[in-house]
């Protein structure tokens, strides 16, 4: 394992150095975009997600419901992130009459609706099954 780790270390250092050397001519313009991701995530996104999670945990006490709502929120956030470049085109983007070639806002809205409808359906079915099992247990003499 020691040899494998050492090999990974050497290869990793070499590849990182090569990438850094390739990036050197554009370092000035890329730096804000390199640093921006982790700063935004660590200082803003992650704390907000944590606080949101705590609040959600207080509001929704049923474990199953909480898990599915959290999953729905994670999926919605991912879809929104992927949609950002499609919904927001800064003026620096060159004109391309082929783009946008479909209605992305409507597509996103439909996608999110389908997602949440599926989650509601799953929760309704799960709750009904749960209630039936409980009823059968309590009805037993």
């Amino acid at each position, binding site marked *: *394992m020691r040899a*494998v780790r*050492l090999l*990974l*270390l050497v*290869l*990793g*250092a*070499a*590849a*990182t150095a*090569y*990438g*850094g050397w*390739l*990036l050197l001519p*554009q370092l000035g*313009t*890329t730096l804000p*975009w*390199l*640093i*921006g*991701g*982790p700063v935004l*995530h*660590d200082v803003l996104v*992650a704390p907000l*997600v*944590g606080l949101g999670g705590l609040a959600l945990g207080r509001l929704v006490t049923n474990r199953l419901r909480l*898990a599915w709502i959290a*999953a729905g929120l*994670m*999926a919605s*956030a*991912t*879809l929104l*992130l*992927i*949609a950002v*470049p*499609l919904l927001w*085109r*800064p003026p*620096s*983007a*060159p*004109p*391309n*009459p*082929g*783009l946008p*070639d*479909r209605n*992305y806002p409507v*597509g*996103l809205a*439909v*996608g999110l609706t389908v*997602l949440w409808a599926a989650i509601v359906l799953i929760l309704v079915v799960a709750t009904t099954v749960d209630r039936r099992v409980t009823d059968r247990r309590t009805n037993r003499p």
Partner: protein
Amino acid sequence: MIRRPRLPVPEDFTAPSHSPLVAARLGLWLGVAFGLCFGTGLLSHYIQHPPGWFAWPTRPVNLYRVTQGVHVLSGVAAIPLLLAKLWSVYPRLFVRPPVRQPIRLSVHALERVSVLVLVCAAFFELVTGLFNVAQSYPWGFFFPTAHYAVAWLVAGAVLLHVAVKLPVARAALGTPLRGRTAARAAAPGRDESSERRAFLRTSVGVAGIAVLATAGVTVPWLRRVSPLAWRSASGPQGIPINRTAAAARIAVPPDWRLEIVWPGGRHTLSLADLAALPHRTAELPIACVEGWSASAHWTGVPVVELLRWAGAPTGRPVRVTSLETDGLYAASTLPAAHARDPLTLLALRINGEQLSPDHGYPCRLIAASRPGVLQTKWVARLEVLR
């Protein structure tokens, strides 16, 4: 009870999703996604800037369509996986450095720096890639070279990270997620093992949803399913267009002639001459570097037949030049394998119609298994290289 606000410590985070068992598994899956993305990206780079030892096959005709589809979709899948992984290891951000022990401090610093490089580079690749597929460039750098350089940073930083974390990761991956019944009975209440599994299942599920929401750019039967596919297969004459004739400032001269040049010879022919030569129809995809792809029926003269007819040597690389005077993709070089492929056409028609100006009228190059940017439009000149 009023507590003084303070910076959190790792022990403050009690959710089961912060367990190394979760982080190691997410790391493994993210490693697979990044590995696929890096490998296919490297292929695409070499196809466009081939080093001497590199050769790219002409068959199957959809090969580049598949590799570049894998490139963009593995990148899309990596977005939720990266966020889940960062969430899982977020408490580690607050580990206090061992200030009084110089050796441990330097190891700690080295690990922090390698992780910082990894996270910076990973975010950069996913964000710039996502904007590039939408053909939006809200930055001052040149996307292809920056995306390529930072890809090496990601690859190197991933290897460094694995080198540092290998013992922890191996131990975590060797520990089953499902806690033993005895342990569960001993600690009733919160079922940590099922919460860990739920977090992992959700992460993978969301990655799947993200892929499904975008895969329509390249998978024909998902075209109508994917709401966020950045390109559909529609467009003028059934195929999308990236660069229009107006954007490339193309004006086809009325006396347009195709020029064929080779060492020791030259031949020109008019559009009527070209149209009179034997034609061939082939179904070939336009597979863009942005991951979208769509097939069409192209009709035209096979380049190898054209060269033979003109008396030029065949089986050598051919430089194809456009009427476009500036622009990065005004010319491309057909490698020898593609130049001798009977499916490499100088197309005059698309799906039974004459090429529209935006599709490259009077004629365009279309070859199997190549990036769309190398399928030169508005062709003016073929030069057989040595």
